[in-house]
């Protein structure tokens, strides 16, 4: 909400510097987002009277003027402007002055134009940053000609209305009453402890026989409708003070009657509309919902086809306004309008918002209604103010005919509480007199009964319901600096901390961090095209993703069902930025549901995705997965598997018992190629939720074996088709004393023959009850070799 300091001063006699007022507003809950001095670019510009105009001796298009700048002396100005004349009073930027120029600031210096000295420059309205509404004539092509009675040598800024500060205030959603100049003035008066001068709302009434009957068919959507008939209307221009104020707020003047409606909206926060009564057929106003397909053309000549949830203002025959949004073209104020029916209503904020959004039609009025206009106070005061202004401006005669239809009880809210209750919320004692004073200044009517009191809530304060609201009113005016920090002095001691699952998550991340992985964080949604990138078939369960109804864009429109696409995008982005190698992981939810149309909350399931590229291979990634499992003492196994997005020969599924809990492998070379990934990338996705269910809860100590272990290396030549798992399993099966059989080398060479490989394993023998003699180990070794020969046709190398 914009607040010009000059306008504010009409209601509060506040004279502190603008910066200080900004701090005061801030302290009571109104943050000034921007404070602008309107004249900041216009410096050193004064008024002067042209007393002499002569042609430039060497330039046909230049004029040399002698200017009387009052106390600043006589100046000589050379100008190219053609609208200057002897006797004209004009703004002059003297040596060292600044003016606005093409969106920036221009510095003016004394100089010579074709050999003739010019001690400055005459200014146009544009150079002062003003339009006709600030000062008539500001938009002419040439120099701004000032009124004949303008004093000479005076600073131009107050004269053209730019010696002013504009506060841009963030008003919180609970304070629609402060979406007006007068509403903010109330707060300023309260925080500065100054009296508030209310705007004049009195007006005289002329008799009339005209009656425009008002019927509200939708009292819920229109809790109040006030109408008033004004006759003898003379459409014309508004006076300078009014036009200037509209201009300060960024509005253009239209005509006196229309300007009054806009003025009241800004000043009192009441959106108003003026109908040309002549066009109100049947002298009737009916507030009703539109019929399906009904049409209206608004003031800006746009036609809308309506739906039954659009609220309309109709006359006896047809729609004449889109309620709260904009008037109809058929009843607008024209130059020859001679009688007006004013509307000041309260429309339900939701209804206006829906209509405005669905039709894409916004206005200052709809913006105001969307914040909420109280039905009891604002329409009444708004109408009175408008009628007063009609009379003051002499542009019409208010009559004694007014309609007022309301469906809300005309009662004031009362909060009954005690001073102690407020103290209990705040934790400090605020003296009774302070409480009474503050609430009084905010127009609460206080009735004190000892330690208790009742407060009648002002009609415009819809937000105040109970004593905590009063506590807030008190402390924001009393000052938050009075709060004395305490540390739960009277509260119960509680035990805090992470749940076991949360602690495990932290540990899992640490384990991956230790494997060299960096934690990534991606959005929870991505593009449905990401499923195509993974070449998932049409019926893949991953494609059953929950859709966002109103996504930012198609790219962020479905909830993740797998984390792989995000990780893949991370790898691609990194490689494109020249990060040729890296390791990333993300632990986050996927969102799973049976049908994509949600009937209940979907399952949010923690998944873990790993990505590795540039350096390292499948077994580095596998090592990380194994390390994670080991950190939690979980037994997992790996089997050859397939995924459409992984290399068919370099893919494994991860199993925990019989349950599949994940997959890992090399990104399919075709996909890698398509993404211009030159180095190999590896991906793993684990069902963390399933895995974590088997996480060891605690550490249980196992006794150390009494006898030392014996290690022996074994190298066997086997066929290419024999897997490491087969060899290991065969060894472990052959001899119970082998506790570990770890592959440490695979060798292929000519001397082994085509289709053969040599596998070297390190075997660890352990025996709980007796020491292992070299002879025993030799015996075991022989048995193992025998089994390998028999089962896998392996030969000892």
């Amino acid at each position, binding site marked *: 909400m914009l607040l010009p300091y000059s306008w504010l001063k009409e209601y509060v006699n506040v004279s502190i510097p603008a910066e200080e007022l900004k701090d005061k507003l*801030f302290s009571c809950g109104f943050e000034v987002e921007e404070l602008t001095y309107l004249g900041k670019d216009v410096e050193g510009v004064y008024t002067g009277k042209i007393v002499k105009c002569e042609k430039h001796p060497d330039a046909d298009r230049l004029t040399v003027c002698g200017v009387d700048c009052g106390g600043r002396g006589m100046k000589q100005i050379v100008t190219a402007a053609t609208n200057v004349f002897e006797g004209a009073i004009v703004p002059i930027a003297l040596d060292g002055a600044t003016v606005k120029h093409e969106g920036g600031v221009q510095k003016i210096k004394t100089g010579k134009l074709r050999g003739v000295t010019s001690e400055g420059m005459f200014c146009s309205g544009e150079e002062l940053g003003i339009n006709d509404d600030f000062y008539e004539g500001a938009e002419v092509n040439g120099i701004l000609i000032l009124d004949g009675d303008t004093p000479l040598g005076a600073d131009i800024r107050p004269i053209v209305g730019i010696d002013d500060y504009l506060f841009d205030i963030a008003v*919180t959603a609970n304070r629609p009453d402060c979406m007006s100049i007068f509403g903010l003035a109330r707060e300023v008066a309260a925080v500065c402890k100054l009296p508030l001068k209310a705007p004049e709302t009195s007006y005289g009434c002329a008799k009339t026989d005209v009656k425009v009957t008002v019927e509200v068919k939708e009292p819920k959507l229109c809790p109040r409708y006030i109408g008033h008939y004004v006759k003898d209307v003379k459409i014309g221009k508004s006076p300078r003070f009014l036009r200037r104020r509209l201009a300060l707020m960024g509005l253009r003047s239209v005509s006196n009657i229309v300007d009054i409606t806009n003025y009241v909206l800004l000043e009192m926060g009441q959106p108003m509309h003026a109908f040309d009564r002549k066009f109100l057929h049947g002298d009737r106003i009916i507030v009703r919902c539109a019929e399906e397909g009904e049409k209206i053309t608004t003031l800006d000549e746009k036609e809308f086809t309506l739906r039954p949830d659009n609220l309309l203002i109709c006359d006896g025959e047809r729609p004449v306004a889109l309620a709260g949004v904009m008037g109809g073209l058929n009843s607008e104020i024209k130059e020859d309008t001679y009688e007006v029916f004013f509307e000041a209503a309260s429309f339900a904020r939701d209804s206006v918002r829906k209509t405005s959004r669905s039709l894409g039609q916004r206005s200052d009025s709809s913006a105001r209604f969307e914040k909420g206009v109280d039905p009891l106070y604002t329409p009444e005061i708004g109408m009175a103010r408008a009628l007063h202004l009609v009379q003051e401006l002499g542009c019409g005669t208010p009559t004694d005919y007014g309609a007022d239809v309301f469906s809300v009880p005309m009662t004031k809210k009362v909060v009954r509480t005690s001073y102690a209750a407020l103290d209990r919320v705040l934790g400090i004692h605020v003296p009774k007199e302070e409480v009474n004073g503050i609430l009084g200044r905010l127009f609460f009517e206080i009735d004190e009964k000892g330690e208790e009191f009742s407060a009648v809530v002002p009609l415009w304060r819809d937000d105040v319901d109970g004593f*905590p609201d009063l506590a*807030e009113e008190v402390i924001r005016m009393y000052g938050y600096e009075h709060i004395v920090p305490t*540390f739960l002095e009277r509260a119960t001691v509680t035990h805090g901390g992470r749940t076991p699952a949360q602690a495990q998550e932290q540990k899992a991340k640490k384990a991956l961090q230790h494997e060299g992985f960096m934690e990534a964080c991606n959005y929870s949604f991505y593009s449905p095209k990401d499923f195509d990138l993974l070449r998932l078939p049409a019926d893949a369960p991953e494609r059953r993703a929950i859709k966002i109804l109103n996504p930012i864009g198609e790219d962020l429109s479905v909830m993740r069902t797998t984390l792989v696409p995000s990780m893949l995008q991370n790898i691609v982005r990194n490689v494109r930025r020249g990060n040729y190698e890296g390791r990333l992981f993300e632990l986050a939810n996927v969102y799973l549901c049976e049908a994509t149309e949600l009937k209940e*909350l979907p399952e949010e399931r923690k998944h873990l995705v790993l990505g590795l590229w540039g350096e390292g291979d499948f077994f580095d990634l596998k090592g990380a997965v194994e390390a994670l499992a080991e950190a939690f003492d979980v037994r997992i196994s790996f089997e050859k598997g397939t995924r459409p997005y992984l290399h068919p020969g370099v893919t494994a599924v991860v199993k925990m018992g019989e349950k599949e809990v994940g997959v890992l492998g090399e990104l399919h070379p075709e996909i890698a190629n398509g993404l211009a990934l030159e180095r190999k990338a590896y991906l793993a996705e684990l069902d963390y939720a399933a895995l974590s269910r088997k996480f060891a809860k605690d550490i249980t100590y196992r006794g150390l074996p009494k006898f030392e272990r014996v290690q022996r290396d074994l190298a066997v030549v086997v066929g290419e088709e024999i897997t490491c798992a087969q060899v290991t399993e065969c060894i472990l099966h052959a001899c119970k004393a082998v506790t570990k059989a770890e592959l440490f080398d695979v060798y292929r060479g000519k001397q082994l023959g085509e289709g053969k490989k040599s596998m070297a394993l390190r075997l660890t023998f352990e025996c709980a009850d007796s020491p292992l003699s070299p002879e025993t180990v030799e015996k075991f070794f022989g048995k193992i070799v025998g089994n390998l020969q028999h089962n896998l046709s392996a030969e000892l190398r």
Partner: protein
Amino acid sequence: MEEDLDLLQEATQEAEAAEDSHSLYEVKMKFLGRTGKVTALLKGMKELAQEARPAFGKKVNALREALEEKFAALEEKIKAKELQKKLKSEDVDVTMPGRKHREGTLHPVTRVKDQLIDLFAGMGFEVFEGPEIESDYYNFTALNTPADHPARDMQDTFYLTEKFLLRTQTSAGQIRVMEKKKPPIKILSPGRVFRSDDDATHSPMFHQMEGLVVDRHITLCDLQGMLDEFAKKMFSETSKTRLRPSYFPFTEPSVEVDVSCASCGGKGCPLCKGTGWIEVLGAGMVNRKVLENCGVDPDEYSGFAFGMGIERIAMLKYGINNIKLLTENDVRFLEQFKD
């Protein structure tokens, strides 16, 4: 006897010619081994006359001792030489890069989240994580924000259906906790939240940390006391907090909480835009209607709640100037957040 002398000379010559310990050993075996020449001498003794044997034996033994001594000396010399050679061959270029284990990193948001959890856990807060997909009821209605409430305009919500949405605030978790747990309650609710906002300073997904305390005799002073503690631990020992009025539908009174700028100590700098204060979180006394919605008697209990954006805290703490960096996952960015 001539033979004896010959052997000594022959063995010495051959031994001295040996280049390494292996050939020296072979020479030694040739003379002193089981089938060696000196051993053969002893074996050949039985061929001698009985009376000649002791003298001969003595001489052979002397020869043997002399040879053993000789070999031992040579062995020592050769071993020393060989060690030198071995050491020389193992010489390394110590300026070559070391082989190190590359530790990964945790995301800055995780780091700050963990730090916050540790901090508040120490004050008795339990951690509760609510669902990221929420019903309209938990996200809005129960938090005193019914359907046509103006505060709904404050946040742009992603809807999945008319009833379900992506939570816009971790405050939704408050209700779930209060429905199940009776006071005293002290919970911390971290997690992802979503708003339909995507520009230079907003991400459609970010993280919040919500704190809630409900007990008897809780006041605004307690709120500030706890936040002071938070500011000191999270920013600097000299950090202070400032409350100023604000509005949230689920708290009354509501406050915006500023922390004194740690960068300039409150004197005013570009980071705090010259004000000396940095807006860090929103808070307030839990609205009575919210307590009632959860079956907690507002006449008996009161409480406060606070909520902060974890990204914001992380950005302040680490001096990150662009929120987008936090979801780009550029390893050059992530690798800076080492333990």
